[in-house]
């Protein structure tokens, strides 16, 4: 086994950040152990495994991947809604993992979250206004009629009427509930919002409305988003940069445009070609992956993607060397030892049993 990969620091490509990035995540890991005192053996699940990225002010970072890749867990770890096992998280220079008590509560005003399921994200026993007001009450930002006024303004801002604040969640549709959830997140004036699959549960036409709303709010309030989704077309639409995750690791990280033009990681290539396109005239050569996604409790050695990989140069070296996330082009990072340029030298690969030299493979010509 060669040395564990060094995380790329994901410096924003194409955008010069003003000084330090707003959010900086380095080597984030989260391991769950299932099985306890009364059950069989313990099973370690590496939900998130050494993830690093930055988010600048006013930027949207998309995190994309299929189920079980760890994207939701990553989002929640950043907010410390789930405690990370390892790694460093810095937000406006502060060390997030070291904060406690009052300081942690203050941080909560700066980082918020919007959830996927509109039907479980609002307390059914509280009026909509009370849900939105909660943040104002906890942080003593406003109270009484001043708070009411703010709630009303927030509702209007997300495209609903202020009078709705006395109604209950069950009186609203899915799309409306998402808007209410967004209003709640905005109530404390955050700088960063983690959007955990905010439109996946919505119909197409409603999706479009909510996506537009998110973009408008970003412009008006200079927000940063960490936008988590499994739908590539949605992510490409809203994100500046995109990180592709697979089995707990980031396997590719670059600007949205670059990702869709020149996906370097074979997994990204397959992912892109799998998306059905709403255009019958496009007949594409589809890369169909073989097999299922392995369970995160039982990860393949070396490159976690190798069992399903279609890269022509795939060989035994891939089963032994864990590919580092490295810069293949300015601002474009990918974890594949067979896509040049790579730090893992040909000698090292041969030593590990490699037979095919790295050779750039780009089956998708966009």
């Amino acid at each position, binding site marked *: 086994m060669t040395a564990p990969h060094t995380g790329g620091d994901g410096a924003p490509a194409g955008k010069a950040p003003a000084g330090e990035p707003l959010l900086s995540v380095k080597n984030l890991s989260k391991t769950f152990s299932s099985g306890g005192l009364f059950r069989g053996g313990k099973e370690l699940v590496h939900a998130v495994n050494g993830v690093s990225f930055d988010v600048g002010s006013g930027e949207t970072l998309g995190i994309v991947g*299929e*189920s079980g890749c760890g994207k939701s867990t990553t989002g929640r770890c950043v907010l410390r809604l789930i405690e990370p096992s390892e790694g460093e998280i810095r937000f406006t220079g502060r060390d997030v993992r070291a904060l406690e008590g009052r300081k942690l509560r203050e941080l909560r005003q700066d980082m918020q979250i919007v959830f996927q399921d509109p039907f479980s994200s609002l307390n059914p026993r509280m009026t909509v206004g009370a849900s939105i007001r909660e943040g104002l009450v906890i942080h003593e930002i406003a109270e009484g009629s001043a708070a009411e006024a703010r709630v009303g303004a927030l509702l209007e801002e*997300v*495209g*609903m*009427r202020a009078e709705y604040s006395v109604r209950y969640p069950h009186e609203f*549709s899915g*799309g*409306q509930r998402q*808007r209410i959830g967004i209003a709640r997140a905005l109530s404390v004036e955050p700088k960063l919002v983690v959007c955990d699959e905010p439109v996946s549960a919505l*119909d*197409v*036409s*409603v*999706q*479009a*409305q909510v*996506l*537009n709303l998110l*973009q408008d709010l970003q412009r008006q309030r200079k927000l940063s988003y960490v936008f988590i989704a*499994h*739908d*590539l*077309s*949605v992510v*490409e*639409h*809203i994100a500046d940069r995109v990180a592709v995750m697979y089995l707990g690791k980031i396997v590719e990280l670059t600007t*949205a445009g670059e990702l*869709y033009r020149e996906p370097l990681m074979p997994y990204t290539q*397959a*992912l*892109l*070609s*799998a*998306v*059905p*396109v*709403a*255009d*019958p*005239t*496009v007949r594409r050569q*589809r890369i*169909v*992956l073989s*097999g*299922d*996604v392995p369970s995160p409790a039982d990860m393949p050695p070396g490159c976690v993607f190798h069992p399903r990989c279609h890269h022509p140069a795939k060989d035994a070296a891939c089963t032994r060397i864990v590919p580092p996330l490295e810069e293949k082009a300015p601002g474009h990072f990918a974890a594949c030892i067979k896509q040049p340029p790579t730090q893992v030298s040909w000698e090292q690969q041969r030593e590990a049993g490699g037979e095919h030299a790295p050779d750039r493979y780009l089956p998708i010509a*966009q």
Partner: protein
Amino acid sequence: MTEPLLSVENLRTYFHTRDGVARAVDGVSLEVNRGETVGLVGESGSGKSVTALSIMRLIRHPGRIEQGSRVVFEGKDLTLASEEEMRRIRGNRIAMIFQEPMTALNPVFNVGDQVAEVARIHERSSRRAAWRKAVEMLALTGIPSPEARARDYPHQLSGGMRQRVLIAMALMMQPELIIADEPTTALDVTIQAQILELLRDLQHRFGTAILMITHDLGVIAETCSRVIVMYGGEVVEQAQTEVLFAAPHHPYTEGLLQAIPRVGAIRQRLAVIPGTVPPPTRWPDGCRFHDRCSYSWERTEHEHPPLYQVGEGHFSRCHLAEEPERRAQPHTPLVARRRVDAA
């Protein structure tokens, strides 16, 4: 001109609830020919799933298929068939694949038995013969080591595998028609690609017709030769796939196509359809899309449009067929002007 395999005529399925009558399917007619893949597209509340369940006569109280509806399959009207006759058809001549494989499979039996049961019911095969056939089918659907997997229980398999099991079950008796209700919605994108490819292969091999129900226009574009769009419990547009995508007639279809973020498209605001679907207990009198439409006028408010023919095999439920010049004057939809609820 050969007889269509399935002909649904003026299907109306109403739910008689305490809140009023919900007219989930309100006069839907469609046809599926042998070996064809037809897409049925619509969002929540459009009535597409209820249509599928109505075809299979799986509607329960308080739902009811109303008088005057006809569902003709291979010349026989299914609305008049006895429950015994329907049982012989379900799983045998018409099979259904559901969205959630986990709830469609019985957790206490292994998958091999569940697939084999189909043959035992319809062909009265022996246990051994049915099991053998089941394993063959599982192999056909691309499940590796089918002998071993057949002994697994549903919870031991991944989502993609379970969907393959459902497909194997559906194909056991080589039905003429498969109704697939959102078969890939719950699956990851790469698995979805596998399943769609599988369905295409199997269709070529067995010549089965597929009624593909989904809200995903991308899936439709890739798999269907003909598309039916539903809104408000009715068919609002019907056409060959290429025609529908290249030149949609009905404003709702237009809106749907514009609302989809496309991979590779230039980043800009998505065009949205403001407002929401009205409740099925209170369909409006005129065109049901009227207050969300950019071209509406007085006629569309009061006069319910029939299905006009607007091209070869292309039908649209829109008065613009008779007054096409109004398309040149789009305006803000009424619902956006009233600033009534955003969706």
